[in-house]
């Protein structure tokens, strides 16, 4: 989120796909999407291109749609890692 802020400050719009939205909120990220995923699989299940593509597509849509700094949009995709 520190690097995200630096990129945003340089004049490029950014969005982060996060597994830990409270951390994102605390660190002042300008835009965020939060699918229901564990750390390490933020873009979704491994070898599930459809889920990954949907998470990335919805995140790009939110890059344009989010109109308030700090907004976190939950995404309706779920993956639970089998540990």
């Amino acid at each position, binding site marked *: *989120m*520190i*690097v*995200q*802020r*630096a*990129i*945003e*400050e*340089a*004049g*490029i*719009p*950014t*969005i*982060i*796909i*996060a*597994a*830990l*939205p409270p*951390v*994102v*909120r*605390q*660190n*002042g*990220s*300008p835009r965020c999407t939060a699918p229901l995923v*564990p*750390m*390490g*699989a*933020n*873009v*979704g*299940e*491994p*070898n599930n*291109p459809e889920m*990954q*593509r949907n*998470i*990335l*597509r919805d*995140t*790009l*849509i939110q*890059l*344009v749609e989010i109109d308030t*700094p*700090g907004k976190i949009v939950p995404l309706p995709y779920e993956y639970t*890692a089998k*540990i």
Partner: protein
Amino acid sequence: MDMTVIKGLQSEIYVPVTPKPVWTPVTKPLNEMVIALATAAGVHLKSDKRFNLAGDTSYRIIPGDVDSHDLMVSHGGYDNSDVNKDINCMFPIDRLRELAEEGFIKGIAPKHIGFMGGGGDVSAFREKTGPEIAKILKEEGVDGVVMTGG
């Protein structure tokens, strides 16, 4: 009546401070935007120097035409097992390419960035690494950046 007994008294309990908002508005529709990826997940080329797992504020450049099988992760702060199976879990370069091919976005950037986030020398990330990464992305003229981390 003055309710303050001692002026300027502060709690000894540390409370986190959320930084001020930063904001750059989007000015184009998605199908006119060139997008770059930047990840805190420790992604880099297999041929590149690994990150120091104990703390590393350097970054690696990942070419946009990379074969995703030539990428790997070195990061000491999360379970790497999913990303070792499929790098797109944290660095969705193949998915971004597919979205460009279908015309959802205009294109993908020539350079993308991997670094090892999740703590370490926060002031170095804020004052040096972050601005350096921002400069690379600014120079290649991307219209938006999708990040993963946190």
